[in-house]
């Protein structure tokens, strides 16, 4: 197992507002970490710190792979959906480090890679559509393609299941499970119930960070991690129902 990154006693935030305080974490190849926590608890700040978009206020953040070897899927609402850009160009932007002067390169390899990713996700037909015309599910597929363009060693996804229908959500998580055989994944979600079925470990982020060593987490643990969460469950998607701390009562109701 290769260590991809480590965070040591790190604090981060915006201006004078500390969002993450004294957190430590390690990510290894093969990891599939679900990051959960309340809104405003620092999930996105954690990701932005890992991506180098935010400089930590104190502590260390060491990356053992190249920054361009991290695939990143941002929250959909961070994207300007009216921007005049087509699907294929969004995907190609995933290999942007070859973009400088790219007008004069053939870039055949890059184009083929983009096409094959689109085909893999089953969205070749929309390759020339402007992104503003896509459905939520199509949009997430496009951004997943972009994140995969550079054959990342680490894939970071910020709430990929927002604005998508339940069918695609299930499909997406199965796809991620498959991708996890080739790369480590960090997945942010507010939806503990669903992701706990797919991820290997869970990290609770709420100003502090607790990396829980398994994908089953009890409400008791959540409380002790200071991670107040609503547990939502959906129809068709398989999910692990969290063990309740008062399991006896629970059984009592069933009988």
């Amino acid at each position, binding site marked *: 197992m290769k260590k991809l990154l480590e965070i040591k006693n790190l604090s981060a935030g915006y201006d004078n507002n500390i969002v993450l305080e004294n957190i430590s974490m390690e990510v290894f190849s093969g990891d599939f970490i679900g990051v959960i926590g309340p809104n405003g608890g620092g999930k996105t700040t954690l990701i932005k710190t890992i991506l180098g978009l935010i400089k930590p206020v104190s502590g260390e953040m060491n990356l053992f792979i190249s920054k361009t070897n991290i695939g990143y899927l*941002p929250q959909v609402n961070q994207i300007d959906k009216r921007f005049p*850009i087509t699907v294929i160009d969004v995907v190609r*932007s995933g290999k942007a480090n070859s973009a400088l002067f790219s007008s004069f390169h053939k870039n055949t390899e890059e184009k083929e890679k983009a096409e094959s990713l689109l085909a893999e996700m089953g969205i070749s037909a929309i390759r020339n559509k402007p992104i503003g015309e896509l459905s939520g599910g199509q949009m997430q597929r496009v951004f997943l393609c972009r994140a995969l363009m550079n054959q990342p060693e680490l894939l970071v996804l910020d709430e990929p299941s927002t604005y998508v229908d339940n069918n695609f959500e299930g499909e997406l998580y199965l796809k991620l499970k498959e991708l996890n055989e080739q790369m480590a994944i960090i997945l942010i979600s507010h939806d503990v119930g669903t992701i706990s079925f797919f991820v290997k470990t869970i990290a609770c982020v709420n100003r502090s960070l607790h990396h829980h060593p398994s994908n089953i987490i009890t409400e008791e643990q959540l409380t002790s991690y200071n991670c107040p969460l609503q547990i939502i469950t959906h129809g068709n998607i398989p999910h692990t129902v969290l063990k309740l701390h008062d399991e006896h009562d629970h059984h009592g109701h069933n009988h």
Partner: protein
Amino acid sequence: MDTIIELFSYDFFVNAFIASLLAAISCGIVGTYIVSRRIVFISGGITHASFGGIGMGYYLGINPLLGAGIFAILSGMGIQLFSSKGKVREDSSIAIWWSLGMAIGIIFVYMTPGYAPNLMSYLFGSILTVSSGEIWLMLALAIVIILFFTFFYRTILYISFDEDFARTSNLPVNLFNYLLMILISLTIVLNIRVVGIILILSLLTIPQATANVLTREFGRMMVYSVGFAFLASFIGLLISYFADIPSGATIIFTQVILFGLVKLIRMLSTSRK
């Protein structure tokens, strides 16, 4: 038609024609970047701040456009610096530079002894009096812009679309933000003579809105914008000449009519399907 051809035998008209073509190139391309990136308000700030330089030019007896150029670039940088380092809200930062420039301009124009010649042409534009020197500068700018946007098309596209992602891909985001800010400033300043400070924002936004009706692809939008900007400028120029009304205002009026027509045609053709 013969009278139009006859017009081309006049130097001032040929100059105006070339100026409208060059203005269409620089404003069409740079405007697409501005609109796509939603920095229209920043551009408005830079435009008005440049009036400070025009006033200073009058007072010091140097070319007002040189003063405007310096003010435009400084305010562009200032807006970026204020909001990124000074922790001032970006819209407030824009308003500060916007009004500061106007204030400085008014004070300098007031202090300049005697009458400030051509002041109205800077405020409202006067394409028929554009000088050959200014045409050469506009030509140089158009060439620089075409080369820059062709060479770095994808870099500009990716940074504009998703700045954070571009940073994670190690693209030189800050460098390009500053370079593009300089190009915006120069585009504004060198086109002030065409439509004037008050109206220049329209050359950077209306042809783009018209183009956006027909395409939602960055590169195409640039080309269409140049086309629409030129078409409306030329028609506006003719109308202003024959009706003897101000050229800048007529050009902008024509831009809006053209936008309305394209939008209408588009709506009718999609509803018929």
